[in-house]
């Protein structure tokens, strides 16, 4: 009995010492995961995940404090990539239905209604709105991420979201659809 306890204690002490040494020797600082998560996020800075921007959300996800399926603009694609990155099971954004990435939109100010209150300029996370007090505001379409934060901020409801149209430069080839693919896809999923 005594010898059994002694042997186990001996084992524990020796192995504990080795591990303690290793934990000092192989100490790791920082977390490269945050960078990878942030690179996956669409950077709209919309705050729909409940965090004040993409970086804080990435930090929360890396720390395990937030689910990876909270990014609404990224939709299921981003949720899927994050789940894969974290090695957890994929859950669709916003319940079982799942949301695909929304068509890309930009905000548009109806310039005849705008009263020049600068309320939208203050909330725009990427400084995509130009204008000054009492002057009409305009949205620069290129930097606009379509986060919709300016829409509720406007006191006269002059901001609307318009989809970004396709032109020859941004046009994409479609996934080839041919007879048998259509037939195969007709089978019930799930």
């Amino acid at each position, binding site marked *: 009995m005594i010898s059994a306890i002694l042997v186990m204690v001996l084992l524990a002490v020796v192995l504990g010492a080795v591990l303690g040494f290793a934990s000092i020797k192989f100490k790791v600082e920082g977390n490269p995961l945050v960078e990878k998560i942030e690179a996956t996020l669409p950077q709209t800075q919309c705050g729909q995940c409940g965090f004040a921007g993409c970086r804080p959300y990435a930090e929360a996800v890396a720390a395990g404090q937030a689910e990876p399926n909270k990014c609404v603009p990224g939709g299921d694609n981003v949720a899927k990539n994050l789940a894969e990155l974290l090695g957890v099971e994929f859950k669709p954004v916003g319940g079982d239905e799942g949301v695909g990435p929304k068509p890309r939109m930009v905000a548009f100010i109806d310039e005849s209604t705008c009263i020049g209150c600068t309320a939208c300029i203050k909330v725009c996370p990427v400084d995509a709105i130009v204008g000054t007090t009492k002057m009409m505001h305009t949205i620069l379409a290129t930097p606009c991420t379509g986060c919709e934060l300016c829409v509720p901020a406007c006191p006269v409801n002059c901001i609307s979201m318009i989809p970004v149209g396709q032109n020859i430069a941004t046009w994409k*080839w479609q996934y080839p659809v041919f007879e*048998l693919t259509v*037939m*195969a896809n*007709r*089978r019930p999923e799930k």
Partner: protein
Amino acid sequence: MSSPHVLTPGSSVSNIMLTVLAALIPAIGAYYYFFGPAILISLVLASVTALAAEAAMLQLRNYPVKYFLTDGSAVLTAWLLALSIPPLAPWWLIVVGTAFAIVVAKHLYGGLGNNLFNPAMVGFAVLMISFPATMTHWPTPLMLSQHPVGFSETLQYTFSGALQGVKLDAVTMATPLDTLKTQLNLQHAMGEIKNMPIFGSFGGKGTEVIAAMYLLGGLFLLQRRIITWHTPVSFLVTLALVAALFNGIDPGRYAPPMFHLLTGGAMLGAFFIATDYVTAPTTPRGKMIFGASVGFLEYVIRVFGGYPDGIAFSILIMNAAVPLIDAYTQPRVYGHDTKPE
């Protein structure tokens, strides 16, 4: 519709499958000549089972049944399986093997083009593991047989499982490979064994001619550019080299290369099974690695292993390695790793 707007005339999946089936016909003829009509019955039985299983699976999966049923791939699987198992077998053996091949090895993976393992060889392996005794009842070559089994007798045996007035042992015997192994285990010398009636001038009596016919069919496929030389050549060369090596070390215990090339499933495997598009590597280097490995494993399993012939297992083992082989043998792409001047 986007470019290109033209296709090679007459090129289709069913054409390829039909050409392969046609290339098997000389061997089937020889089979019939040396071993009687049993092979025809098992071919028909396997084909019918394969088509039925294929149709059922296509229906279940909501695929256009007629369009896929006519591609010929199910029949090819059926023929390869029927040519690998003893033709004088109870009907359920063929039906179980073929149905397993089509349903599990092919359609669970998504059907034509998606399977990882060669369906015919999966069917064979399942039968070999599950019914080892039945799988060794090979018919005696007609010229050695006291009692040549005719068409109606074969039918009777296939469906009732018994022969009137004759014991099954009287019309079947072990294959040359099996005989060789047994005799060697009994400490008989190679020269002595080779004088037994079942052996012909190179391999088994009759089977060596069938093997030659497979070779003929394979050359036809090469000529029609259905298959490339990489797999069969590396397969047969490796098999011959390993056989020659061991034969050189101890001719009394190891058969000469010619024997190994012309017995068992070597020729069928080299030209018709290891060259199966879907389950073999796609890169030239990959094909050579695959063929050489199958040849090597074939020899190891048939000489040192627990089964009379190793073709099915060596192909299945290498099938599993195909994605890995493909991934590591990608050929150099135009403009990559160009030599500096």
